[in-house]
């Protein structure tokens, strides 16, 4: 966790409730940690709820300590709640965003509103899972919930979540699925729940299950993904929503959709950030995000006019050009603002593709796109977590594998904000196939920095709900929307578009190697231009980043991380490896020693999509004195020609002795994915 300036002098003195129990209507007790003003009984405050499964006791403590005491010091109760079946809460958790989770959330809000220290109004804040369920619970309209801050989340669990992109299956479905699998099988802390910790743990180990099975069972946009997708009926969300994200995060597209479609008061903030809260995010610049949150909470939970609603609806960072690098401490740029959003309504520039070129001259030759399965190895992560270097390397290193188009050098700067779109008439030699479009900025020396990318499973060209095979050999109008981005291309740079039929290891391969043919003169790249506007200059700067006193930790053994790709010249296979080890870390406030190690290994042969295989493993250990609990989780997914093959194992150890073990092995027929 990067160090940020610390604030300790708050308007109100802060008290912490280490754990309290919130009883659900069915009797299950949910664990909460609460920071609130010492005098809240006398002068009740609104509550700010953050509600997720990542363990308030240890998993999210570092960021919780920066954030919730800060809210408390400014007259709020910061409330961290573990979902049912996770952390220190009772019961079982059988998946993401299930009705049980949302109903529990409503019950938690009702409970908070009734507490003597609570003013009766509640806000929800969260990033990722907690950002998702903030929107989902808002759509259920609990009376006390008055406003939401949602970061790195989605309104559409099929279109923009870790499972699919453009209808193609992401390998993050496995990698994150294994992460969630490991977390869901960790024990509660005996210091909180007492002797029944083992019994609670066993209930989880027997009951939580492998959520991924549902995710592979459902491969098209069906009821499973509609549940919890607020885009199904935006009108359900009436309360004010502040949506926040970053350009290297995986969840920025929904922000533009929500600004276009939500009926209530709404704001958006998009920085250069990864999947992190903006007061400690990378790439920088960080901002005083907690101060910004307080302006929002004061406005909507305390009815103080902070002026925040008089500001433009959308504030976004237009990035300057930067050389390619897997890690950027900062992306320079500037803030711009928009009063609203309507996709496609702004000025555009359209570039026509001809062989090798993006300069408008339509040529008579068809363009063939057929890529080795290994193309994409230098891409950024689908969702950068901003902790390990996981951003894109020089894109020109992919030139040979993909089909590349370059514009002439730009004779002036070009700024874009929004969704670039590639469109063209494309025929496939197979019923299925993926098309990937990668937009980069190419420097005069040829080095190219990734700007944005889009993926389309061609069977989803008309619908994610009702995919249809392509008719081999018949060209159809195809459109690939790239991720929203704010970027300045500099004079002298070239705009670079690469088209590919594979994007490994981000996207699982289509069932068969595919050759796509782009009909002559039909290919177009449309960029959403965003000329500089006078109000950009008048935007008030954000305050500097700050937080409450950080968690005291002791690093007992060193950690490390690595990310590499190895081509085995004997077998021809390529192995992409991500590995991390936190080392042993002791938390001073609980005396817990935790250590997490993980390894994601993805293998493929350049000629064989059926060789694709990913194995993700986690080891998590928790110890205090005599108590030691460990979890080993391994999940493997293989993309075979007709099925997804999933094997998994969980092993739990109590004091070094095996307590529980379970194996899974299932095949799921591929459903046009």
């Amino acid at each position, binding site marked *: 966790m990067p160090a940020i300036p610390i604030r300790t002098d708050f308007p109100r003195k802060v008290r912490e409730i280490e754990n309290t129990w919130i009883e659900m209507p069915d009797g299950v007790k949910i664990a909460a940690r609460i920071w609130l003003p010492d005098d809240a009984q006398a002068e009740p405050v609104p509550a700010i709820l953050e509600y997720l499964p990542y363990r308030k006791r240890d998993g999210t403590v570092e960021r919780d300590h920066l954030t919730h005491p800060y809210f408390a010091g400014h007259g709020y109760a910061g409330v961290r709640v573990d979902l049912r079946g996770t952390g220190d809460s009772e019961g079982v958790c059988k998946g993401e965003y299930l009705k049980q989770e949302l109903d529990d959330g409503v019950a938690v809000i009702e409970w908070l509103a009734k507490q003597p220290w609570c003013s009766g109004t509640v806000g929800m804040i969260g990033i990722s899972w907690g950002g998702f369920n903030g929107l989902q619970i808002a759509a259920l309209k609990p009376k006390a919930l008055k406003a939401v801050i949602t970061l790195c989340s989605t309104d559409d669990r099929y279109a923009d979540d870790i499972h699919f992109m453009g209808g193609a299956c992401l390998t993050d479905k496995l990698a994150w699925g294994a992460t969630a699998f490991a977390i869901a099988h960790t024990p509660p802390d005996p210091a909180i729940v007492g002797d029944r910790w083992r019994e609670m743990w066993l209930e989880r180990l027997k009951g939580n299950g492998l959520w991924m099975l549902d995710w592979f069972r459902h491969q098209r946009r069906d009821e499973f993904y509609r549940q919890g997708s607020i885009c199904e009926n935006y009108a359900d969300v009436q309360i004010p929503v502040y949506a926040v994200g970053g350009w290297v995060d995986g969840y920025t597209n929904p922000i533009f959709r929500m600004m276009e479609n939500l009926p209530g008061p709404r704001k958006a903030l998009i920085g250069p950030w990864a999947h992190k809260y903006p007061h400690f995010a990378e790439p920088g610049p960080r901002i005083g995000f907690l101060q910004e949150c307080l302006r929002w909470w004061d406005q909507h939970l305390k009815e103080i006019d902070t002026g925040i609603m008089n500001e433009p609806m959308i504030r976004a960072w237009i990035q300057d050009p930067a050389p390619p690098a897997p890690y950027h401490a900062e992306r320079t740029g500037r803030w711009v603002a928009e009063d609203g959003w309507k996709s496609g309504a702004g000025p555009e520039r359209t570039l026509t593709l001809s062989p090798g070129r993006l300069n408008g001259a339509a040529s008579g030759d068809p363009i063939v796109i057929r890529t*080795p399965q290994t193309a994409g190895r230098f891409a950024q992560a689908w969702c950068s977590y901003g902790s390990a270097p996981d951003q894109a390397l020089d894109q020109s*290193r992919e030139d040979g594998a993909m089909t590349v188009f370059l514009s002439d050098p730009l004779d002036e700067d070009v700024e874009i904000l929004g969704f670039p779109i590639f469109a063209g008439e494309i025929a496939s030699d197979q019923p299925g196939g993926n098309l990937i479009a990668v937009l980069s900025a190419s420097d005069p020396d040829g080095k190219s920095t990734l700007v944005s990318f889009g993926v389309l499973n061609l069977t989803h060209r008309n619908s994610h709900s009702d995919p249809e095979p392509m008719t081999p050999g018949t060209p159809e109008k195809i459109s690939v929307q790239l991720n929203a981005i704010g970027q300045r291309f500099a004079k002298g740079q070239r705009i670079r578009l690469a088209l590919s039929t594979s994007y490994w290891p981000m996207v699982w391969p289509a069932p068969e190697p595919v050759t796509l043919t782009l009909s002559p003169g039909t290919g177009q790249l449309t960029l959403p231009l965003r000329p500089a506007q006078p109000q950009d200059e008048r935007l008030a700067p954000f305050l500097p980043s700050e937080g409450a006193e950080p968690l005291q930790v002791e690093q007992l053994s060193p950690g490390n991380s*690595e*990310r590499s790709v190895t081509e*085995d010249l004997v077998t021809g296979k390529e192995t992409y490896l991500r590995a991390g080890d936190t080392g042993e870390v002791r938390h001073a406030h609980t005396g817990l020693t935790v250590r997490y190690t993980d390894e994601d290994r993805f293998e493929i042969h350049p000629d064989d999509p059926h060789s694709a295989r990913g194995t993700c493993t986690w080891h998590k250990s928790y110890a205090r004195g005599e108590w030691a609990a460990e979890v080993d989780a391994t999940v493997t997914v293989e993309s075979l020609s007709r099925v997804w093959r999933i094997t998994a194992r969980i092993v739990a150890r109590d004091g070094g002795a095996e307590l529980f073990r379970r194996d899974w092995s299932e095949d799921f027929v591929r459903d046009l994915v």
Partner: protein
Amino acid sequence: MTKEPHITVQETVWIPMPDGARLAARVWMPDGADKTPVPAILEYIPYRRRDFTRVRDDNTHPRFARAGYAAVRVDTRGAGDSDGLMHDEYLQQELDDGCDVIAWIAAQPWCDGNVGMMGKSWGAYNSFQVAAMRPPALKAIIPVMGTDDRWKEDIHFRNGVMATDNFWWGSIMQLLNTAPPNPDVVGNRWREMWKERLEAMTLWTNLWTEHQINDAMWKHGSISQNYGDIQVPVYFFGGWSDLYRDTPFRIAEHLKVPCKVLMGPWAHLYPHDGIPSPQIDFVDEAIRWWDRWLKGVENGIMDEPRLRFYLQDSVAPNPTITHRDGRWVEVADWPSSKVGARLLWLNPGTLREAADAGGETMTICSPQTYGAVAGDMTSFATPGDMPGDCRIDAGGALIFRSAPVASAMDILGQPKLRLKVAADRPQGFVAAILADEAPDGAQSLITRGFFNLTHRESDERVVPIVPGDEMEVTVTLHGIGWQVPAGHRLVLHVASTYWPVLWPAPEPVTLSLVPGHSTLEIPVLRATDRSAPRNLAAPPTPAPRRVTALGAGSMERGITTDLVTGKTRHRVFIDGGVFGPTGKVRFDEIGTEFHDVSERIYEIHPADPLSARAEMTQSRTLECGDWKVRMETFSEMTCTKDAFILTARCECWDGDKPFHRVDWHHEIPRNGM
């Protein structure tokens, strides 16, 4: 039916030199040679006749003996079991010894006074070199896979550019030079001989690296200095997957004596062991040659066309390829009237019959990692050591692509790339890679060539590049026979780096080409002559391997890109030595156990030529009864802008006792490299 003549094998015969030193030989002789003297065939190399080349020798020399020749396999002075010291390759001492060995052989009662000399690699070099000294008894030679020009086409430099093979081969010799003679052969003085060798040992890589122009050291032993020195008939054998592919064309053109050439698809292996197949019975063809020139049998061999080539069919890229389809073709002379030139112009992105008018300057600053799929230029056909799919590298080069060829094109000879090129640094080189692009986009390497721009006026004098000045240079690509099928395209890569084949220039170099001034001339065999060449016999079943495997060998070869640092690392690990993963073996006839293990690492950062680093760690263990010796070597090459830096070490053990250790550190100024 005639009776197969019996042969006698003498394990060790001592050949006295005029200065009293004795060279060790293994001799195969037909029974009765003492009564009816026979011609003799000499193979004279440092690679340890008793163990290292034993199995290979068993497949050639006994067959010569059965055909009525005395076959004599001699260890050069200072190597194997021979007396004395060896200070470098091909020194005058070695060549003088060679003449003395020939004179000794000719004077033996079993010899009729006629001697032939043959050998692969080292033995090819010194066959040429000894022939140039015209020992009277030497009547013909068969050089297999060697060169007439130690500057242009040796393991050290490639047309004036430093090859990493200089380091690699130097490291292999470093290990060879540490090995003692065998006590069973030389008796108790083995330890004293070993000590003498070790104390005199220098790091040959250093010597070779010090000579960065074509000076007297390289001219010595280069018969290209005066082809007229060769006055005996020459039959050269080579392979398209090997390094030595220009020598056959040069000698066919320049030698004044009867000369034949046979080029197969092979790596650096005798053609009867050749990979990729098809193999031929080299020994049978050699016997025809010896019969003609040592016995005077008019067997018609000289009535056949002088040059015979395997014209390889196109094939998908595969670094572990084991077979090449193709057909044998013959021409009477070189240059050949049967080979015409096809001229293609380098235009932006294309190779066309005509130059485009105008057009922008084409520039390339190749990343230091360009060349990752190059394979080893001196392939031994160990798994993974041949070129991969060139398109994977294509982002690092200027790419020129022809239209699909209308009908099959039979390339035979050395393509010539004539460039008008400027560079922005005082030192730099051009790497030209010609590939065959299949309709699916995969690019198979046809051939490649290099040119050190500071050697444009002479190989004997460095003339720094004047940045920005246009230079006219001709890059001769290595000889090849390859059929490009109808519908495939020719793709030319022009790059300023080629790692890990070539050591990079000290700074990143940008090359600029002006359209309309550069051409590629491709030698194309006219499809007129359809006469079928004489059938070449397939090799017979190999001689029984009198070897016991004592452990399973293993082999790993891979390229790892660290996605955090950006560095690329090429690693080869072989349990078994340079010829492949043979593991530990015992030579059953002599009881010697032999075990080589090596690891080679080449690493570089794409943006930094001074990050180039080569490392090789090797060990050899020799055991026989109570006798056990172990040699370990380490070598490393790095560089600064001004110097090459070599760090190396040898450690030897006699049994468990340390016996000798030497450390080297050399800094060698760069001179146009």
